[in-house]
């Protein structure tokens, strides 16, 4: 079984620039999550999709962050404009809709804002 794919692996941008991250979940996983992990901290949920609908985006800074999951498969997360405090690893995860199987995480995109 292929894992959760994310790209790019690393990105360095200047503050106020925009950036986009891409995620391809495990085939058949209806639920997709974007988490932000700041260095030395645990992951924090940004947004959760079920198929192509948003389930929870209460912690997404909507003035600068946006995400979409077209056709209920791939997803993109965008930041515009970026701030220094957005420097973090952005993790994508997916899970089945039912059953206690836990999440499968991708390796993440490490963003540095300078």
């Amino acid at each position: 079984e292929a894992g959760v794919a994310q790209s790019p692996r690393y990105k360095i941008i200047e503050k106020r620039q925009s950036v986009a991250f891409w995620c391809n979940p495990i085939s058949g996983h209806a639920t997709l999550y974007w988490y932000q992990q700041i260095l030395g901290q645990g992951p924090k949920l940004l947004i959760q999709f079920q198929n192509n609908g948003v389930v929870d985006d209460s912690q997404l800074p909507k003035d600068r962050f946006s995400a979409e999951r077209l056709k209920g498969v791939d997803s993109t997360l965008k930041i515009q404009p970026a701030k220094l405090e957005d420097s973090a690893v952005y993790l994508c995860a997916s899970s089945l809709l039912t059953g206690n199987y836990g999440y499968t995480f991708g390796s993440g995109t490490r963003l540095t804002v300078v």
Partner: protein
Amino acid sequence: QKEVEQDPGPLSVPEGAIVSLNCTYSNSAFQYFMWYRQYSRKGPELLMYTYSSGNKEDGRFTAQVDKSSKYISLFIRDSQPSDSATYLCAMSAYDNAGNMLTFGGGTRLMVKP
């Protein structure tokens, strides 16, 4: 106060030692408890999954949940250098699939040969 508290470490032990990793939490609604292992520059991977109180064993790993004390533990027996990683506890109030997890900050473990 954070919902889930975890000592950040680092915790350094010699190879073969028994390791104890712990988390405390404040939300009594949490019923599903997980431990993830995260190697450097990798995403977290699920190690253990438990529901409600009790113990669960899987090879060298044992997870314990004490809901009355809002305290969970992960024990690693015969620790190996390959166990060196950050261990994250995670919790959910509902069936994990399709529901968000709340993570602790992670404990960095180093097992020295």
